[in-house]
């Protein structure tokens, strides 16, 4: 489903495309999903669940000692996910938002609200910074714009190298420019050292 949406878009995707790409019989598809939208929602939810899981990991859970703070590790983990699953990312960030059905759009809105809240906490801790929910959504939008541009250009594999930009954008409204720049520089050093 994700691959078909990335190639021809959700609108032009058919169940026949999906079963052919997946190499499964129509009966098997019908046993798993009620139709095209249901399958797309399952793909969407799979990607969002994995994104949320990666935003929940702590720095000590992976790559201990690489010099990244917890929030930087989380952002890096999400970028690696997008780079690994670009078709799913495109379904979640582009098709659900622009080309999908009302249920897909509602799923996108719901996921955006959760991610914006998590971003706010990522930058400020649970106490908040006084930054409005609208601004948290705008910050998420800044990150998504960069993801969408790279996906559209077929450069998903480049995303992990843009970690400093993502770290900066995720933090600057909440922690201030000096601290956000400091963390972006730290992320840039790690990206350089790791040769991402």
């Amino acid at each position: 489903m994700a691959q078909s949406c990335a190639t021809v878009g959700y609108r032009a995707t058919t169940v026949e495309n999906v079963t052919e790409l997946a190499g499964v019989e129509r009966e098997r598809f019908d046993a798993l999903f009620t139709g095209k939208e249901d399958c797309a929602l399952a793909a969407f939810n799979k990607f969002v669940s994995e994104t949320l899981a990666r935003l929940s990991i702590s720095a000590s859970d992976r790559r201990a000692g690489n010099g990244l703070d917890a929030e930087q590790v989380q952002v890096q983990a999400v970028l690696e996910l997008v780079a690994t699953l670009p078709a799913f990312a495109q379904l979640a960030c582009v098709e659900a938002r622009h080309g999908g059905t009302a249920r897909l759009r509602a799923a996108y809105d719901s996921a955006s609200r959760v991610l914006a809240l998590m971003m706010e906490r990522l930058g400020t801790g649970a106490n908040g910074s006084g930054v409005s929910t609208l601004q948290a959504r705008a910050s998420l939008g800044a990150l998504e714009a960069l993801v969408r541009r790279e996906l559209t250009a077929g450069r998903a594999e480049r995303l992990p190298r843009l970690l400093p930009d993502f770290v900066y954008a995720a933090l600057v409204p909440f922690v201030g420019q000096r601290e956000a720049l400091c963390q972006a520089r730290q992320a840039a050093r790690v990206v350089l050292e790791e040769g991402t």
Partner: protein
Amino acid sequence: MNAIQRKTLLGEMLEELVQRGYGEISVDRAREVAGVSGEEFRAEFGGKDECLFAAYEQLSEEVVQVAGGGCESGGPWPDRVRVGLVALLEELAARPRMAQALTRSFPGIRPAAYERYVALLSRFEPFVHEGREYSGLGDELPGEVELLAVGAAEAIIFGEVDAGRTKGLPAMMPEILFSVLVPFLGPDRAAEEMRTAAAAT
């Protein structure tokens, strides 16, 4: 087909797209409103998709011109961004169906159409580029800071258009301005500009 007929036809195609959806567009109805024959239509565009893409190009050009004209006004960089933003938001609020075509209906047709939307957003980046120099940080700012600023504003605008609140966009100018300025100036200076803009409106 003269220039007025062409412009009318392109506008009607986008109206069709927003009101009926891509699959139900009536090229004949759009042609009739514009007074364009089937033969003229085929000679100019070839088919529905070519006409829709041309319509989107025309609309994109109009919107970029409106915002760019505002950004060319005098004064410090944040003021020019504010004037450009006001012009853009007022234009969208005055044409809510065109705003929907711009942000949702057309980009959702298929990946090739979405590419046009990404290209449109990139055309706003030069309008904020001067923020690097104004901030005093120049190249210390991340390489993609212009897109981050445009993307933040787009997220708010898209959300309002999608929710059917396009006419209320001008009232949200101060918060959208904050989202554009904050990657360049940080939250304190951006908030100061937002308060000044709010007081002036």
